[in-house]
C-alpha cells in the first residue's frame, strides 16, 4: 500500500524564475521509514509543504499534478481528515510553537480534533515520557533552548497520532542522547505500522530509513 503518491508534480514559487519541480513522481510505502536527502535549496521543505497541503493552502505558487495520501487527493481531505492522516514537524521549530505553555501547545491540536479529554490526557502522558520532556510542561516556548523547542514541536505533532509523520531536519538541534531517543521512537512507530518521512542532510541520522530518496 502506498502512503503517499506524488504524480506529475510541477511547482514554482511565486516570482521564481524556474520551476522547482517539473513532472516529479514519487511513491512512498506505508509502514516504512523513508528519508529524503538532497542539497540545500533543492526543494525538500517545499515538497513536504505540498504533501501536507500547506502549499497551496497558505503558501501560493504555480502548482500542477496531484498528491494522494492513502489513495485520497490532498485537496479533497477535510481539515480533520488531513490532521489524522498527515503531521508535519517544521524545519524551524520556533515558528511552530505559539501557546503560552508547553502543555497548552500539546493539547491544542487534539482538542481541535475534538478528542475525548481522557484520550488527550493519555496521549500527553505517552509523549512526555517518550521524549523525556515532562520537566518542560509549564514553560513558555520562548523559555526553551532550541533543542528543547525541537522536541516540543515533534511532541505536538505526535499528539495528533497522524498516520504519516513528516519530519523536516528534526535532528538538526538535538544532542546525541535525544537524537537516539527519537530514532528509537521512530523505529517503534514503524513496528506499529506508521509511515515516517524524514528529511535530513546527516547520513548518520538516516541510517534508520528503509529507503532513501535523493531529490
Amino acid at each position, binding site marked *: 500500500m502506498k502512503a503517499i503518491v506524488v504524480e506529475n508534480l510541477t511547482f514554482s*514559487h511565486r516570482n521564481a524564475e524556474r520551476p522547482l519541480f517539473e513532472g516529479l513522481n514519487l511513491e512512498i510505502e506505508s509502514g516504512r521509514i523513508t528519508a529524503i536527502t*538532497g*542539497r*540545500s*535549496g533543492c526543494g525538500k*521543505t517545499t515538497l513536504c509543504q505540498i504533501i501536507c497541503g500547506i502549499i497551496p493552502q497558505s503558501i501560493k505558487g504555480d502548482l500542477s499534478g496531484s498528491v494522494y495520501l492513502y489513495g485520497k487527493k490532498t485537496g479533497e481531505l477535510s481539515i480533520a481528515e488531513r490532521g489524522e492522516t498527515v503531521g508535519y514537524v517544521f*524545519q*524551524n521549530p*520556533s515558528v511552530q510553537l505559539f501557546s503560552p505553555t508547553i502543555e497548552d501547545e500539546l493539547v491544542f491540536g487534539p482538542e481541535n480534533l475534538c478528542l475525548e479529554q481522557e484520550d488527550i490526557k493519555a496521549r500527553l502522558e505517552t509523549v512526555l515520557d517518550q521524549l523525556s520532556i515532562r520537566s518542560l510542561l509549564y514553560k513558555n516556548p520562548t*523559555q*526553551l*533552548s*532550541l*533543542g*528543547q523547542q*525541537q*522536541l516540543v514541536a515533534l511532541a505536538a505533532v505526535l499528539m495528533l497520532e497522524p498516520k504519516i509523520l513528516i519530519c523536516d*531536519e528534526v535532528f*538538526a*538541534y*538535538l*544532542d*546525541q*542522547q*535525544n537524537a537516539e531517543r527519537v530514532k528509537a521512537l521512530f523505529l517503534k512507530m514503524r513496528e506499529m505500522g506508521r509511515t515516517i518521512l524524514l528529511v535530513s*542532510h546527516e547520513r548518520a541520522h538516516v541510517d534508520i530509513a528503509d529507503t532513501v530518496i535523493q531529490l
Partner: protein
Amino acid sequence: MSAVIQFKNIAFTYTQDMPLFSAFSLTIEQAHITILRGENGSGKTTLTRLAMGMLKPLKGSIFLLGNDIASMQLGEIGQKVGYAFQSPEKQLFAATVYEEMTFPRLLLGHPEQEVFDRADQLLKQFDLQAYKEMYPRLLSFGEKRRLAIAAMLMNNPSYLILDEPTASLDDERVEVLSAVIEQQKKEKRGMLIVSHNEAFIRRHGDRIITLERGYVIDDSYR
C-alpha cells in the same frame, strides 16, 4: 596566550527557580578554535549570549579582549566579535539578500566599492549570488544559515562566535564553512563554536569544553 573571553565567577538565572550558572569561571583564548558542546538545555547558547552582552550576569563579571563588557556598548562588542545565531532568522532583517550583506557596512561609512566587492566575493563563496535580490525570509533554511554567516563575515571581525553553524547545512556547504574556518584560523582569528556535529568537532577543535547544566564537566586540549 591572550584571553578573548573571561567569565569571572558569574551567576545567571532566567527565572526565579534554579540558577543556570553559579560561581562560573572560564577563560577562552583568542588563538584557539574552542568548541562548546553539551546536552540540549545545558546552557551553551546562554553562555554565548552572556559573552556578547545580550544577557547580563547577576553576579561576577565578563571580560572581552580585556575590557569589562558591563562598560561596553552592544555595537562596540558587535564590531569586535561576529556572532551567528543558532536560528539564522533572528539575524535577517533586510529587504534583499544584497542589502543584508551591504547595509550595515555602508551605514558605518565604508567606501561603497570596497563593500560591494567584499559582498560579491562572500556571496560567491557561499553560493548565494543567484539570490541577491531575494527577500531573505523566503530563502530555504540552509540558504538563510549561509547568508547569516556571510553577513557576519562582512565586518571582518577579529573573533567569531558561531552557535551550531552546521545545523541543516549539506555536506558540500559544511565543507565551504570548514574552509572559511581554516582561513580565519590562518589569519589568527579564533572562534568559539557551539556544535553537536562530531566530525566537525574533531576536525576543527583545539579545545573542547563540555557543559552540563551550567557546569563544565570536561575540558580537553588537542
